[in-house]
């Protein structure tokens, strides 16, 4: 079983159950509330669908019965009555218990099938469908009627009776397979033979055999009867899939020593450990109350159940006491009075509340899971998943961000302590404290980031289906390869990426990938491949969409760009092929001759660009004509805090995003050479163009003292896949900042990607190198 899926399924199932229960309670008050019935149905339907992913036939079966009933309610063919609502709620509670079992053990308890079969039977009974033959779990088994044993040969029967008389519980299992069962691959003879400890087996026709040509060998007319020494739980487990066609009876009455005669007025625990109905109801309600606590919505149903129970027991005298307890519970918003009342009933009626366990105690533990049972006990371990409104996380993140910024004030304070107040000790202590706070805030930041991290699988998951559908519509053959789906990034980013990726993939399928014939003609396999790849690259997450299609023709792109007046001819001709390819991201550019319903409206790609840029990311396309295109989206891992390098240019401080910085160097004047008008230097065998930032920013570079022989300060950055050296006046520290985008009238100022506050209250401008260079 897939653990990741299961881990996701469990909280989701709980939520759906809660939704369904809330909706049902609304429905109880307003039976005509269409929204409520739809909500309940949707929740149950979703739950059924998701549960199908796991091997939990019992759970699915119960939910399915609920869904069918709700469906009938929805189309108006069945009117919901309060007692049916109670049954549905009980079923959902049972499903909740199943979910707990799944969470605790990764599978359902041994008795789950029987409980589910019974629950489903109760629900289906309202739809006029046959109630399963299966005995209800909470009533003791009946004695098999004599005609059941008629087919069994006398010798085996006698032997089995002898075993029963010796105190063994011998069961009679009667299995009447569905007449069409041969078509579904069922082999009733093999199924019944999987029962352990079979003392006798009989197979007889249910109806007289048809003669001659009327005989249909594929119409199952068999009735199989087996005598077994196996326990009821085992039988039910073994025959799980046939349970509704199986009936179980006792071969003979159990010896009186084990149980008193089954008299309904004096319930006792029968030999197989199940509880009599009354005690079961009490136990279930106590358990529910204990688990859910005070819930004004849920309480009326409990109230009804217990009131009905009292009436059915002929103990109406206790009703006022029950109502008093209810009133008290409502007043104090506490279930304690109810539990106390139930306990008094319990004492009179049932074994003490060991029944905190799932409705029926689990079958004797099989080897290997001796400690499993206590898991199911009443107060379940609190759920380990917390659902938190995103706004709260965002608030927390903003606060941590502010803390990070205020923390940056401490070094300034330390400097003041030293320079103004002349106290070096004080300065040192402040710095020590700063180091601690710095570490803590970084950890806090990391922790809060983790909370917001989502795997990109969240968006990748929808592509297999999407690609299949689009490919079919376009008559193309495409497979999807996904890599690195567990790469995590900030929720905002992952969620915002959905649409851009969709556009890119659609575009790739529509324009990039050729029809199969064309591919074969080009010597490629008919089946094209679209590859989605995600990986983490230092502080960014990179998502690549690549195809092995026809690629982008830079010449054609230039022509189209000019024709559509996206750029001028001169400019187009100056572009390198790779730059030309990136023209597809200009607004108003669309190469498709005809606008298809998939893409081609010329809005897709610049939407991609603007979305990605809004997130602080970059888009780059590389394409090889004839062999494919790769679109690469580079996005920051998280949006909250940016690390910047502070530099001094012309007496002012500026920030440069740290993820662009490659290294800092000091260049001696003779290390700077000239190529034509441009200054360059050689760094690690690479010619690096130099940019004098003071000139770029239109400020006057600070004049350097004559005795400063440290050389020119050069910040080597990687901008748009090029290495460039920024000549600045001096380096300052690196710091974490919360980047506030430029807004208002500043939004149109080019060259800056935002501002932030320095610890001493000054505003730091963060340079947007890509725009500036």
């Amino acid at each position, binding site marked *: 079983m897939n653990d990741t899926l299961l881990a996701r399924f469990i909280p989701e199932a709980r939520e759906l159950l809660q939704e369904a229960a809330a909706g049902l309670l609304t429905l109880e008050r307003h039976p005509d509330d269409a929204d409520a019935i739809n909500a309940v149905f949707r929740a149950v339907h979703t739950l059924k669908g998701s549960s199908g992913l796991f091997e939990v036939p019992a759970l699915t079966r119960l939910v399915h019965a609920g869904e069918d009933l709700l469906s009938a309610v929805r189309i108006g063919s069945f009117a919901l009555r309060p007692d049916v609502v109670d049954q549905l709620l009980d079923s959902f509670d049972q499903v909740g218990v199943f979910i707990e079992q799944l969470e605790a053990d990764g599978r359902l308890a041994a008795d789950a099938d029987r409980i589910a079969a019974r629950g489903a039977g109760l629900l289906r009974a309202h739809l006029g469908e046959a109630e399963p033959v299966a005995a209800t779990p909470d009533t003791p088994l009946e004695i098999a009627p004599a005609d059941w044993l008629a087919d069994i040969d006398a010798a085996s029967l006698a032997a089995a009776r002898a075993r029963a008389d010796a105190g063994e519980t011998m069961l009679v299992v009667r299995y009447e*397979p569905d007449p069409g069962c041969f078509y579904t691959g069922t082999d009733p003879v093999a199924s019944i033979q999987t029962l352990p400890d079979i003392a006798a087996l009989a197979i007889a026709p249910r109806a007289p055999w048809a003669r001659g040509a009327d005989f249909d060998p*594929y119409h199952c007319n068999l009735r199989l009867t087996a005598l077994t020494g196996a326990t009821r739980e085992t039988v039910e487990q073994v025959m799980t899939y046939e349970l509704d066609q199986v009936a179980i009876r006792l071969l003979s009455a159990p010896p009186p020593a084990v149980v008193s005669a089954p008299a309904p007025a004096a319930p006792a625990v029968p030999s197989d450990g199940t509880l009599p109905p009354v005690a079961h109801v009490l136990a279930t309600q106590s358990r529910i109350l204990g688990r859910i606590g005070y819930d004004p919505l849920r309480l009326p149903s409990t109230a009804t159940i217990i009131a009905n129970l009292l009436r059915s027991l002929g103990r109406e005298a206790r009703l006022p006491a029950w109502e008093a307890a209810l009133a008290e519970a409502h007043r104090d918003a506490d279930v304690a009075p109810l539990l106390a009342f139930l306990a008094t009933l319990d004492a009179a009626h049932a074994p003490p509340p060991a029944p905190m366990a799932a409705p029926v105690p689990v079958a004797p533990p099989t080897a290997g899971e001796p400690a499993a049972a206590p898991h199911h006990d009443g107060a379940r371990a609190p759920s380990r998943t917390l659902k938190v409104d995103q706004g709260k996380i965002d608030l927390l993140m903003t606060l941590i961000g502010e803390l990070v910024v205020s923390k940056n004030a401490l070094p300034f304070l330390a400097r003041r302590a030293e320079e103004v107040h002349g106290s070096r000790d004080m300065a040192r202590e402040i710095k020590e404290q700063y180091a601690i706070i710095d570490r803590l805030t970084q950890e806090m930041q990391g922790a809060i980031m983790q909370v917001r991290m989502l795997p990109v699988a969240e968006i990748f998951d929808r592509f297999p289906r999407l690609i299949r559908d689009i490919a079919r519509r376009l008559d193309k053959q495409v497979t999807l390869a996904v890599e690195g789906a567990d790469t995590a990034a900030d929720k905002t980013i992952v969620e915002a990426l959905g649409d851009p990726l969709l556009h890119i993939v659609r575009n790739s399928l529509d324009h990039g990938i050729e029809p199969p014939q064309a591919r074969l003609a080009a010597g490629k396999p008919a089946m094209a491949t679209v590859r989605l790849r995600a990986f983490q690259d230092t502080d960014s997450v990179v998502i690549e969409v690549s195809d092995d299609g026809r690629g982008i023709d830079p010449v054609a792109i230039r022509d189209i760009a000019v024709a559509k007046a996206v750029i001028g001819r001169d400019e187009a001709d100056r572009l390198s092929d790779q730059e030309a390819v990136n023209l597809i991201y200009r607004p108003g550019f669309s190469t498709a001759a005809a606008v298809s319903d998939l893409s081609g409206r010329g809005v897709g790609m610049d939407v991609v660009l603007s979305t990605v840029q809004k997130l602080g990311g970059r888009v780059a396309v590389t394409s090889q004509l004839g062999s494919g295109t790769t679109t690469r989206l580079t996005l920051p891992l998280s949006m909250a805090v940016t690390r910047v390098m502070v530099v001094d240019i012309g007496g002012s401080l500026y920030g440069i995003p740290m993820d662009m910085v490659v290294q800092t160097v000091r260049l001696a004047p003779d290390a700077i050479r000239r190529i034509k008008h441009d200054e360059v230097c050689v760094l690690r065998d690479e010619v690096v163009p130099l940019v004098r930032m003071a000139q770029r920013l239109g400020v006057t570079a600070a004049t350097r003292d004559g005795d400063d022989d440290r050389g020119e300060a050069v910040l080597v950055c990687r901008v748009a896949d090029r290495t460039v050296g920024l000549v600045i006046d001096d380096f300052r520290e690196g710091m974490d900042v919360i980047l506030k985008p430029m807004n208002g009238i500043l939004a149109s100022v080019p060259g800056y990607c935002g501002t932030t506050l320095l610890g001493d209250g000054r505003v730091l401008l963060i340079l947007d190198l890509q725009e500036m260079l």
Partner: protein
Amino acid sequence: MPIRYARRRAHFEGRCTVEEALDLTAFLAADADAKVSVGRCTGMHAALVQVLLAHGVRVQGRSLAPDMIRLMPILGGAGAPSAPHDLAPEPECLS
């Protein structure tokens, strides 16, 4: 073919599946006195059991396969839920 049809006898061999049911029905319908041997049969689908029961066939031979042992008394005495002595000779067949 797990069921081998001779002129008047069907030999069940190995695990006999649901697909055989139609052929077996046709074979038994054509010859009311046809015999069925199960000595080398290791398993039999319910549909075949049903065909044999419906035609009142008493199989010949005895299979010791685990899936067959319990079926032997049922098929051997098919149609006649019967006197204990029907079961008595079994030990001899076992040997």
